[in-house]
């Protein structure tokens, strides 16, 4: 099984990286882009025989305690059968 975890900066927390990317994008002439936010993306591989509930619980906990600093970041995740 595969879990995808997305970690993004909370609204209200300045994202200088996103800003820089946005500037680069603009200077390349893509005027359409209004905003860029940069986050992190994780793929976790779990054994195929893990029960979905258990997987959900494990991934949630890992995302909350390890992958995210909840002072500045939010996360969400998806599970996918292999």
């Amino acid at each position, binding site marked *: 099984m595969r879990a995808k975890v997305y970690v993004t900066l909370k609204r*209200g*927390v*300045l994202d*200088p*990286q996103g800003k*820089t990317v946005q500037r680069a994008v603009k200077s390349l002439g893509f005027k359409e882009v209004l905003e860029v936010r940069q986050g992190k993306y994780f793929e976790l591989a779990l054994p195929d025989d893990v029960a979905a509930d258990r997987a959900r619980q494990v991934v949630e906990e890992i995302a909350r305690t*390890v*992958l995210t*600093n909840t*002072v*500045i970041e939010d996360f969400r995740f998806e599970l996918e059968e292999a």
Partner: protein
Amino acid sequence: MKFGIVVFPGSNCDHDAYHVAKHVLGEEAVFLWHKDESLQGCDVVILPGGFSYGDYLRTGAIARFSPIMKSVGRFAADGGRVIGICNGFQILLEAGLLPGAMLKNERLKFVCRHVHLRVETCRTPFTGLCAPGEVLSIPVAHHDGNYFADAATLAELKAHDQIVFRYCTEAGLLRAEANPNGSAEHIAGICNRAGNVLGMMPHPERAAEAMLGSADGLKIFQSLLAAPAGAR
């Protein structure tokens, strides 16, 4: 006084902190291995600078799970003195021993240079020998020193006199150009409410001998020696 310097995998200022404690101050100093739990009866614990676990996930994010950090947490709760320098500060934030979080430097580059710090409070055992408003010259060297806390937390920090150092000009003025990383309210260092846990981005251990360009950092260590004993 016995200094314990924690060695996480990836710590790289551990020897520097040890050198100051042992050879500049002439005190007792030991390294504390991250996999151990014992603090070996130290009076002061230093979480040194570096890149624990490569700082690959977030600065300090993984180090805080080390066995030694449980003991450091207990030690701090009992009033023991803990200094987190640079990566050590980041670890204290991740561990929740200090409030707030670190973001990437505003300019997104690593920055290594001497900066000026204004001492904002002398009530801590780390700043007892400083004068209020005194300006210290101490270097920074980090990629993630842009301190962030929400408005409520910042208000709390101020209300309880927890801001210990701010970046300033040589004359002690708070100016954007004197802030090397975009940190909120020019914060360079904070302490917990009780004042026994200090986190700071600048490296006092790199400014403890005149040969290295400044000995101002020594005041922080000397303050500790002069302060009445804390917990053990």
